[in-house]
């Protein structure tokens, strides 16, 4: 039927994203619906590059207030003290638990930033039509997809600190505005990773280029 290294798109077939059944599209412009599971068929995720860019830019904007604004406000005997994410890391480090400080630093600061950089790199390389390191770029994408959830760590830390430390009037902890922006960064980067279609990385390597729907 087809030579050894052909993609479904080259063979004129479309793979269902839900059940992975290969179908012959009803038409090239509107592939129709999967006959096995009823999912709408698409050669490539719809407007993948535009959506991913939009979500990344939104996440990058939220990243700044997420790190500058306090995530927690500790009130102890009437004295209120704001705490940013980096402040929380410094607190853990100075209280002697440097392994936890490192985990929070990696999960809250480095992973979101790394995800943004990785997705920008993937988008630029796809838009340039690069054929180099496709396998490594696919691996990078899978890592972004896999690791993204761990940035949620600080949101959970803040939530349970707030929930537990409510000893008014002695001491209480309230969430700060930063936590909302931080949660937004995590959600937006996760959605960006979902919007990106890794098959676009490989399309320039295939002789017959297909249209990106």
């Amino acid at each position, binding site marked *: 039927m087809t030579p050894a*290294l*052909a*993609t*479904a798109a080259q*063979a004129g*077939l*479309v*793979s269902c994203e839900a059940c*992975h*059944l*290969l*179908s*012959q599209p*009803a*038409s090239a412009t*509107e*592939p*129709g*619906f*999967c*006959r*096995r*599971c*009823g999912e709408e*068929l698409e050669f490539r995720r719809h407007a993948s590059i535009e959506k991913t860019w939009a979500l990344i830019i939104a996440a990058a904007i939220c990243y700044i207030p997420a790190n500058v604004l306090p995530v927690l406000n500790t009130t102890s005997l009437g004295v209120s003290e704001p705490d940013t994410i980096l402040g929380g890391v410094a607190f*853990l480090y100075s*209280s002697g*638990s440097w392994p*936890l400080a490192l*985990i*929070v630093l990696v999960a809250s600061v480095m992973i979101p930033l790394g995800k943004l950089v990785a997705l920008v790199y993937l988008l630029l390389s796809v838009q340039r039509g690069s054929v180099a390191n496709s*396998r490594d770029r*696919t*691996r990078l*994408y*899978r890592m972004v997809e896999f690791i993204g*959830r761990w940035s*949620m*760590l600080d*949101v*959970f*830390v803040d*939530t*349970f*600190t*707030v*929930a*537990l*430390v409510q*000893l008014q009037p*002695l001491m209480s902890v*309230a*969430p700060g505005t930063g936590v909302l922006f931080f949660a937004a960064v995590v959600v937006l980067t*996760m959605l960006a990773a*979902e919007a990106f279609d*890794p*098959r676009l*990385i*490989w*399309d320039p390597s295939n002789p017959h280029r297909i249209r990106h729907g």
Partner: protein
Amino acid sequence: MTSRSASQAVACPDCDLLQQIPALPPGDKAICTRCGCLLAKKPLGPKDLPLALTIAAAITFVVANAVPLMDLSAVGRSASTTIVGGAYEMWMQDEAITGVLVAFCAVIAPGGYLLFMLTLLLGARRTPPPSWLGEMLRWASHFEIWSMLEVMMLGILVSLVKIAELATVAAGIGMYAVGALMLLFPAIAVTFDARDLWQRIEWADGEMPPAEPVGAPVAEPAA
């Protein structure tokens, strides 16, 4: 029925390369020759193992949500919180969106995942499995992405260490239940073979699943 374990053509979800998946011995998996994406797996163990694990996880999940995660005591005062209690406190402290997000990732998504998995694993015992199981499977995989119990567990540990500076804190039974769920969720994912279910399932267009692997059926035209 004739053997359906013969090799089948699939397109790699990550690079779209067409390839045949050979009949896999139990415990084996097939990965894409070009990009290394996992294409198919044949889990070890009895057929009902995912169902058993899901029932165990569902019971543990109820426990994890019903009892306190941790207790705090300081100068004669004490406090405790559950998972939902944490989300509720965020909601009450003017961080409603964050509260909803925490509730979604820590309660609704894992709970929904277990509920859909339970329904679909029970439904999959029918021959052929009814087509609505496909919808369940899609929902289960959406919820699986947003279910973050393992991240929450680490978050709770970090907050315990932070609070330990100020007060005496102790892990409650809820923590052990969440710890057990951290092991049960990956165990379900590893033992459940979605591809096998898709191959047996009744088709959405009302047809019976084909006895022989299909080449490529023509998709239904868009309405």
